[in-house]
């Protein structure tokens, strides 16, 4: 079956064990999680997770439904294919000499990245963008020698005025009434 990259966004209670429970549903089917990013959301005590996995659409949808059943998961959507803003942040430590430092800074400028640390023989660059942009810059920097990379993994947000919880509050209300 053809697999594609899926971006799944979830709002979950920030309690121990939630991540384990979700990850277990992916692991069970042998999915490798490409990236996972977790942080606070707009709602107190709810964390937002962005998970990137490779899989067939039908399988990912089935797993999404199972994730949705996890008691501590408030909402989970697959936003693949939706018009959304996608970002990742990377810190890249590059070997630099006095001779090529200027060239590296120039590359960073082209990508609107910034230099966040300098030492005698290295530069640390901070770059934000989608994976393609980060990969393109990495390609250019490899020639200089990369000492260390730290990447956050993808975070994403659907464009337009609606929040992730739009509609689900209504669902919660009618759900509790029934």
């Amino acid at each position, binding site marked *: 079956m053809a697999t594609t990259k899926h971006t799944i966004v979830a709002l979950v209670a920030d309690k121990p064990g939630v991540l384990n429970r979700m990850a277990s549903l992916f692991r069970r089917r042998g999915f490798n999680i490409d990236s996972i990013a977790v942080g606070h959301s707009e709602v107190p005590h709810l964390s937002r997770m962005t998970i990137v996995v490779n899989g067939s659409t039908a399988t990912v949808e089935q797993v999404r439904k199972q994730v949705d059943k996890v008691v501590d998961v408030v909402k989970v959507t697959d936003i693949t294919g939706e018009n959304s803003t996608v970002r990742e942040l990377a810190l890249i430590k590059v070997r630099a000499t006095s001779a090529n430092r200027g060239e590296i800074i120039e590359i960073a400028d082209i990508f609107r990245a910034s230099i966040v640390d300098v030492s005698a023989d290295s530069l640390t660059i901070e770059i934000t963008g989608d994976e393609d942009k980060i990969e393109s810059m990495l390609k250019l920097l490899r020639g200089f020698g990369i000492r260390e990379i730290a990447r956050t993994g993808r975070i994403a947000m659907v464009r337009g005025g609606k929040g992730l919880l739009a509609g689900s509050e209504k*669902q919660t209300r009618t759900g509790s009434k029934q």
Partner: protein
Amino acid sequence: MKRTGAQVVCEGMVQEGVEVIFGFPGGSVLPLYDTLPKYPELRHILVRHEQGAAHAADGYARVTGKVGVCLATSGPGATNLVTGIANAYLDSVPIVAITGQVARPFIGKDAFQEIDITGITVPITKQNYLVLDTNELPRIIKEAFHIARSGRPGPVLIDIPRDVFIDQTEVDFPGKVDLAGYRIVQQGHPTQVKKAAKLINEARRPVILAGRGVLISGAHDELRHFAETAQIPVLTTLLGISCFPETHMLSYGMVGMHGLGYANKAMDSADVLIAVGMRFDDRVTGKISAYAPDARIIHIDLDPAEIGKNVRVDVPIVGDVKRVLTALNKLVETGEHVDWIRQLEEWRKQYPSLDIRDTESLLPQYVISKLCEITGGEAIVATGVGQNQMWAAQHYSYHQPNTFVSSGGLGTMGFGLPSAMGAKVGRPESTVWCVDGDGSLQMTIQELGTIVQDKIAVKIAVLNNGFLGMVRQWQELFYGKRYVATPLSCPDFVKVAEAYCLPGIRVTRKEEVVPAIEQAMAHDGPFLIDFMVEPEENVFPMVPPGAATVEFIESPKKEVPAWPRRSTP
């Protein structure tokens, strides 16, 4: 008022209506055990192995619809529960498992009898908790029972460190459960219900395929009304057995791998298939690409994740089975389907799946049919897993809801005796028969001790064929009769029963069957009958693995030659 964690657990259980706990003590849960006598409304039944506690809680929950509770200590106590929890998870049975844990300062240090049981049970529980603060205990107890019993039921585990039992708290139980992420769609979508009704009203060859969801939802009356109004034949899954009276005109029995021939024919030929509270397990569907080729499928289930999981569905309805059927009953027209039912009756004649060969030897099917006759089909039957289970499913005619207790999803050998025990405790006024195989029974035979000590009057029918029968059957049919690791030497079960101080008799001939069952029924207390049945009898019909359900093998009407009996010690 200040209470200890152990008191909170007990009070919580009392509040949740718990009457009985199946458990086994140990170091980490001792503070709880020490508190138990202060709560006489909580009956504790000491099992012989924690797996028995989980299965007993499971059997109790299946026949009562209430939450079953099992209790074990940390480490090995907790891991011994795992099979039972997994079993309850796959069959959607509400149980709460309470485990002791080492005291908080020892957690994560590989302390004596420490195991990460919440980690282990993640994939087999609906929810689980490691309680690190006694103040959280009231909320967690309340949540656990709510989650276990509501929606699609399932097991919940609460892991409580020894010192959390001892610490005190003033926190009260919350008035209601507040879980933002736990929503249950109860009402079926009206548009979908309308669509389904239209399909049903226009159907020419409709069948209802009813599963355990009907029993969980308590929708037997609604199902019956639905079937009778529209005159639709009713088939059930293994776990759906007893949700519709098998004595009913419209009942065509169980489908699937060992389903009845005519039931599988009906499922295969239907033009509209109304699946109610079932999940299209591979044992039901057979080869998925050939499944119900002409049918438009209406799937009613509470769990959205089950819709479209295994088969394509034309009209999905997510909602509680009882509510959806009630809504549907308002829209479904009176039907006839005379030709279709006539066709089914022809198939019933053509494939007499329930006919029992007339032979001298003692056939297990004969034992079950006599058991059914003598109990009037009124008993609760709890089974092991394997041939005994399939014969009990096929040859006993169930007509009261929740009278068939069996491990469907996980297929757990050893489920029979402990689940029968739980069922008897839950419904003491009912006759409870445990139908088990010699292999399956030996996995949990130690619970004979429990039924004697706690005076649980379970009647046990061992279908003793000296083999791991179902596996042997596969070897016979698909592995060139190479019986590797399936011949089984058994103890003398009658003597084992006697050693446990319960009466038992052995039956080797047909004419002894009825008197033996009558003797067991007349006896006030547990009783064991060791039926020495035909060793190489097979379960038929059978859909070979990987085949379409309609490609079932009918019973070959052969006389099996005598086989040296291996079970006599």
